[in-house]
């Protein structure tokens, strides 16, 4: 592994470290809603909305990893994009370092985004095919005036390339000349350049081979240790999330189901949906594996256009009772640090 160069922490990074002791979260998302208008049906029909994200609350502490899991289509990607205001939330607050991004515009938002970056799932679509690796990594540095002069820029780009385990000679290559894992490393290097305190990782490894996945995960963990970066790690692979996350949040159909510390949620899942999800993970021990009880959910995820009344999970929940069809369960703390939205807990 090449030598890691630690960039000097900016004044805000030091603030974070003090803030961590006081328990002020780096990112605090409250009641986040993202609704998309759905155009369908006749003109007489009531205008419907897709509730992609419907009242999601979570927070991320400085330097920690929050794993956000859920089936595809549950709104986890939209949540990640809404945090960065790439999708504008319909309602709710996104407090980053205590300031609400939802109401921010233009230059103020630009300055805040400097401290928060994103890595996308698809390493093919997330890098401009007309730019070289060096240009891609240099762009945010130039835009924010982080470096002065060509010489310094080149040095910084080379340093970033080496930080993510690529060689400085790859600077001049175009995106199509790299493998999937290498492209993802370029994405990481680009995100790293602005020295963010939060990186939203939107399924950063699900498009990669398993062996490459491990490399990228290790790289992310390594960088977190070095630079004290917090991750909002969005994934559907529970094994990966278990490995990398300190805390885990579970989403279903645009709503938060449960969130707790990693051990707590994997050992004592409270929500029936979490229990079903976890029962689907194979145990890498053949003897234990035979004793594993699988909870198989019936039916499909309902359309977010027509979410069921009451608890959104009631249509597939093996434990549903009459109350679940009537009232939306509150998001409450069932045990210290263990939040859940279920009537039965």
């Amino acid at each position, binding site marked *: 592994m090449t030598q890691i160069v630690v960039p000097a922490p900016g004044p805000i990074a030091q603030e974070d470290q003090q803030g961590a002791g006081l328990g002020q979260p780096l990112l605090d998302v409250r009641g986040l809603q993202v609704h998309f208008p759905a155009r369908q049906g006749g003109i007489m029909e009531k205008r419907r909305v897709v509730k992609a994200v419907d009242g999601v609350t979570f927070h991320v502490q400085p330097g920690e990893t929050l794993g956000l899991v859920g089936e595809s289509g549950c709104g986890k990607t939209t949540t990640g994009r809404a945090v*960065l205001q790439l999708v504008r939330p319909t309602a709710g607050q996104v407090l980053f370092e205590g300031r609400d991004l939802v109401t921010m515009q233009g230059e103020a938002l630009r300055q805040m985004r400097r401290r*928060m970056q994103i890595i*996308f799932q698809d390493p093919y*679509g997330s890098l401009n095919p007309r730019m070289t690796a060096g240009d891609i990594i240099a762009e945010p540095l130039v835009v924010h005036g982080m470096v002065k002069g060509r010489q310094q820029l080149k040095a910084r780009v080379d340093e970033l390339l080496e930080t993510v385990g690529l060689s400085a000679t790859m600077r001049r290559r175009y995106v199509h000349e790299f493998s999937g894992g290498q492209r993802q490393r370029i994405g990481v290097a*680009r995100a790293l350049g602005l020295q963010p305190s939060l990186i939203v990782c939107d399924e950063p490894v699900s498009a990669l081979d398993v062996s490459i996945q491990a490399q990228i995960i290790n790289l992310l963990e390594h960088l977190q240790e070095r630079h004290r970066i917090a991750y909002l790690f969005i994934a559907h692979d529970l094994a990966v999330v278990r490995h990398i996350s300190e805390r885990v949040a579970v989403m279903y159909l645009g709503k938060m189901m449960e969130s707790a510390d990693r051990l707590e949620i994997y050992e004592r899942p409270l929500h029936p949906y979490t229990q079903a999800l976890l029962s689907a993970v194979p145990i890498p021990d053949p003897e234990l594996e035979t004793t594993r009880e699988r909870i198989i959910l019936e039916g499909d995820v309902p359309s977010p256009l027509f979410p069921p009344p009451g608890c959104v999970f009631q249509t597939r929940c093996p434990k549903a009772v009459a109350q679940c069809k009537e009232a939306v369960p509150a998001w409450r703390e069932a045990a210290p640090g263990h939040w859940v939205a279920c009537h039965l807990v």
Partner: protein
Amino acid sequence: MTTIAAAAPFKARTWRLRLWKELRAYPAIPVVILAIVIFLAIFGGALSPHSPYDQALRQRLLPPVGMDRGTWDHALGTDNLGRDTLSRMMTGARVSLSLAALTIAVGVVLGTVIGAAAGFYAGRLWDMILMRLADAALSIPLVLLALVLAVVRGASYWNLVILISLFIWARTARIIRGQALQVCQRDYIALARVAGCSGPSILFRHVIPNVSHVAIVLATLEVGAVIILEASLSFLGVGVPPPNPSWGAIVADGRGVIASAWWVATVPGIAIMITVASFNLIGDRMRDRFDPRLRQRGA
């Protein structure tokens, strides 16, 4: 170190190799024809055996060589005023091709920028304004406008440039907008926003470079259309004013005598056909090569 030393002489040749490889990807006959036509457009005026303007009434309506009365002196025959058709076509190639090059350069560049901007600001006011402008430009009857311009300003080369550019930019903008809409969905556009790039810088650094391959293909495919358009307008007498030769104007000259001397209109007609077909064949091949979907399957 040895590998680098060995690679050096190869590198010196590499651009020629690349050009050769690129050329070989295109159909040979159209490439050769285009090379000849472009050569004539540049040097034709100087090389032509006769003056394209000199009349020789005693030698009018001579047929091309190989026919009765045909001579090598007037290899492609003469027109109604005894002007040498070959000389007029060689000079006219410059008019036809320079007009095509100019209008397409203006039209496609303008259309690409406008189309990409409309796609980038999709659904917003700018998109609406730009696209309605394009619709308006495309709904003007070209021939009518050409007639009006010819009456008001007098027939001229520059009328045609304005007119055809107006037409080309609108067609290009529409197609490029669709392409830009797709590109704007890509994650690298979102990443550029997160990186703090301004709207115009995303447009010029990320959107336009990624729609430019479509613009190149469009430009090639439009050459044929422009040559025919110029020929039609000149034929109608609202294009390049006489006695300047353009291929369309020569066809128009031959129209009156087509019953007695068919070759006067036919020879430049065939030249137009061959040239347009060559451009279209090359354009088709370029589309195949630059079409992103096909390219991904290959790589």
